[in-house]
C-alpha cells in the first residue's frame, strides 16, 4: 500500500513535469553552434558608429530545427545567404533554443565567440535578446517579429498577412463546402492576424465562407496536428491551412483524406500533389544580407532596421507560393489580379468596415489600419469559428 502511494505520487509529479517541459519547448539538448573560435577580446565601444562592426562572426538562434519545412527552415536559408555573402564571417548557428533564459546563455556564448551581430529568430527570443543587448551595447540584434525595440535591438518581419489574404482568396474560390480549417498554436497577435486575413480573403469571394480555428498549444506536435487535422476534416472542412512551425503532418494527412491545403512558411507542394492550392512564404536571404551589411558598415543607427522594419509583398520579403496542379487557370488568374491590385495599392485587405466575431466594428468604414495596429490584433473577424482566451 505504502509503495503504491509513493509510486503514484511520483507519477503525478512526473506528469506535472512533462506538462511543464512540453509547455515551454524542448530542453536545449542539442545546440549546434560551432566550436568557440578563440577570438581575442574586443574593445567595448558604445559609440553608434562602431555598434555591430568589427565582429568575426554572426550568430543565428532558432527555436526549432533547420529543416522543418517551415519557419526555422526559412530563417536558416537566410543565414546561408549571409554565409555566402560574407565568407570571412563565421556563421554561428544554434537550433532548438528554447524561449527562456537558456537563449540568453546561447547569445552570450556567441558574443564571446566574436559575434557582433545576432539574429534571435523566434518571437519568444525577444525578452532574452533585450536582456543580453543591455549588457552588450556594442552588439546589434535583429529580432524576428518583435514588437519591442531598444538602442541596439531592431526587429524585422514581413507583412505575411498579404500573401495569406491572397491564399484565402484562392481557398474561398476552391472550397466546395465553404468550410475552411486553420490549425494554429497559441493566440498571439501574429497568429490571429493571419487567421483574420485568410478569412477576409475567402469571404471576399464567398461571403458565406467560415474558418474553423483550432489551437494545439504547440508550435510543432505532429501527433496533436494529426488529431486536429482529422477532427477538422471530420467536421466537414475541405481546405486546411495552418500556422505551425512544422507542417508535414498536416499537409500529408489532408492529402490522404482528399482535402485541399494552403501552406505557410515554405513551399510544401511536393507533399500534396493533388490538394495543394498555394501558400505564403518568407524570403529572407536578400534582407538578411542587407541587414548584416548595414550593421557591418556601422550604419545601423538611423537605418530602416533601427526600429521595427516590416518588409512587404512589394519588397519581395514575403511571397505567394506556387499554385497546385489542380487549381484551375481562372482561379489562378483571379488571385494574380488581386495580387496586382494589392501591389499597386488599390486593394487593401483590412480596409474598413471589419467586424469581429460578435459583430462589433473593429476597423471603421473608410479607415485603413497601420501595420502597427494590425500587429496588435487581439480579435478574430466575423466568419471565424473558435474562441480566444479573454
Amino acid at each position, binding site marked *: *500500500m505504502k509503495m503504491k502511494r509513493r509510486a*503514484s505520487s*511520483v507519477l503525478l509529479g*512526473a506528469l506535472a513535469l512533462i506538462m511543464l517541459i512540453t509547455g515551454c519547448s524542448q530542453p536545449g539538448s542539442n545546440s549546434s553552434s560551432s566550436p568557440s573560435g578563440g577570438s581575442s577580446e574586443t574593445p567595448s565601444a558604445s559609440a553608434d558608429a562602431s555598434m555591430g562592426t568589427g565582429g568575426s562572426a554572426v550568430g543565428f538562434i532558432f527555436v526549432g530545427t533547420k529543416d522543418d519545412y517551415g519557419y526555422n527552415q526559412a530563417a536558416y536559408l537566410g543565414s546561408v545567404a549571409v554565409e555566402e555573402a560574407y565568407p570571412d564571417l563565421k556563421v554561428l548557428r544554434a537550433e*532548438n533554443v528554447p524561449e527562456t533564459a537558456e537563449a540568453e546563455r546561447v547569445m552570450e556564448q556567441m558574443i564571446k565567440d566574436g559575434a557582433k551581430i545576432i539574429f534571435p529568430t523566434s518571437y519568444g527570443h525577444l525578452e532574452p535578446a533585450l536582456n543580453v543587448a543591455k549588457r552588450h551595447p556594442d552588439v546589434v540584434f535583429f529580432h524576428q517579429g518583435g514588437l519591442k525595440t531598444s538602442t541596439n535591438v531592431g526587429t524585422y518581419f514581413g507583412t505575411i498577412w498579404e500573401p495569406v489574404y491572397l491564399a484565402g482568396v484562392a481557398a474561398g474560390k476552391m472550397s466546395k463546402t465553404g468550410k475552411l480549417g486553420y490549425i494554429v498554436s497559441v493566440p498571439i497577435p501574429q497568429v490571429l492576424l493571419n487567421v483574420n486575413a485568410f478569412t477576409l480573403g475567402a469571404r471576399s469571394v464567398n461571403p458565406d465562407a467560415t474558418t474553423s480555428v483550432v489551437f494545439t498549444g504547440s508550435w510543432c506536435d*505532429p501527433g496533436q496536428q494529426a488529431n486536429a487535422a482529422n477532427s477538422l476534416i471530420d467536421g466537414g472542412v475541405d481546405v486546411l491551412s495552418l500556422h505551425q512551425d512544422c507542417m508535414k503532418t498536416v499537409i500529408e494527412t489532408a492529402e490522404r483524406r482528399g482535402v485541399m491545403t494552403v501552406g505557410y512558411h515554405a513551399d510544401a507542394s511536393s507533399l500534396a500533389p493533388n490538394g495543394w492550392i498555394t501558400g505564403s512564404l518568407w524570403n529572407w536571404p536578400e534582407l538578411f544580407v542587407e541587414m548584416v551589411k548595414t550593421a557591418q558598415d556601422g550604419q545601423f543607427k538611423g537605418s530602416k532596421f533601427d526600429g521595427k522594419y516590416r518588409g512587404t509583398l512589394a519588397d519581395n520579403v514575403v511571397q505567394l507560393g506556387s499554385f497546385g496542379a489542380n487549381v484551375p487557370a481562372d482561379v489562378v488568374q483571379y488571385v494574380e489580379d488581386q495580387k496586382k491590385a494589392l501591389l499597386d495599392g488599390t486593394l487593401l485587405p483590412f480596409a474598413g468596415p471589419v467586424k469581429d466575431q460578435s459583430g462589433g466594428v473593429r476597423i471603421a468604414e473608410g479607415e485603413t489600419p497601420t501595420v502597427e495596429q494590425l500587429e496588435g490584433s487581439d480579435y478574430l473577424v466575423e466568419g471565424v469559428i473558435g*474562441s480566444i482566451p479573454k
Partner: protein
Amino acid sequence: MILADILTGAIRSGTSVMLASQGELVSERAGVINLGTEGSMLGGALGGFAVTVWTGNPWLGALAGGLCGLLIASIHAFLVLSCGANQLATGLTIMFFGMGVTAFFGRGFVSEQIVGFNPVALPLLSDIPFLGPILFNHDPLTYLSILLVPLLWYVIFRTRIGIMLRTAGEREEVLFASGINPKLVRYLAVLAGGFLAGIGGAQLSIAYTHAWVENMTAGRGVVAVALVIFASWKPARAMLGAYLFGAAQALQLTVQQQGYAISPFFLFMVPYLLTLLALLIVERRKSSRTPEALGKVFAGEGSG
C-alpha cells in the same frame, strides 16, 4: 456524428499511448516501474522512422522501432536490476536521455518523407453503421494493437509464463524456490515493455503522423505510465484508459470548433486533468491491487 468522430479520434490518438501502457504493464507486473517509457517511445519513433526511410518498408520500420525501444529499456533494466539503482530516479534519467539521444540522431530525419502505414478500411466490417468507421478504418499497427490486448491478458493470466511474470512482481522467493531466476524474468519483462513502447512510438511516427520531429511524443510515454496504475495493472483497463486520454484530446479539438467561449488553454489541460482524476479515483478504491514487489530492487532478499 460528433460522438462517432470523437470515438474515432480516441483510437487514432490513443493507440501509441495504449501500446506504451501495455508495455509498462508487463514491466510493472514483474515489479519494475519504468518511467523511461517516454524515452523508449522516442527511440521507437525515430528508429521506426529511420528504417522506414532507408528501406521503404514500414513493417521493418515497426520492428526496428520496437528494437530501439527495447534498447533504451535495456539501459533501465541494467541499471535497476544489475546495479541496484533506484527505479524512479533511473527511469526519469532514461526519459531525458531518450529525449536527448533521439534529438541528436534524429536531426537528419526531420525533412525526410515516407509513405509508411496508412489507414485500411476492412471490407464489410467498415460498413457496419456507426461502429464500422470507428473501429475498422485504421492503420495495420492499430489493428494489431487491439488484438494485442486479449493476447496479453491471456498470457498474463492463463499461461505459465504469466504466472512467472506475476510471481516476479509479487513473491520473487517463490520463483527462486522453483529454480527460476527472478532477475531474468524481470529483465525479459522490462525489455518486452520497451519493445511495445517502441512500437507505440513507431505507430506515432510511421503510421499516424508520417513525420519525425524532436520530442514528438510530447509526454505520451509519461501518460502511459500513469495509465497503468489507473488500470490496476489490467490490459483491458489500460486500453480503456489510453482511449479515454485519446478521446479527451479529440474532444477538446471538437469543442474548439463549435465556437464555445472556452479558453483553449483550459482545454489543453483536459486530457491530463482527466487522467489525474482517474488516478485519484482509483487510488481510493480498494479493488486496485499493486504488485507487491513493485519498485523493489531484486537483490536476493528483496531490499527496496
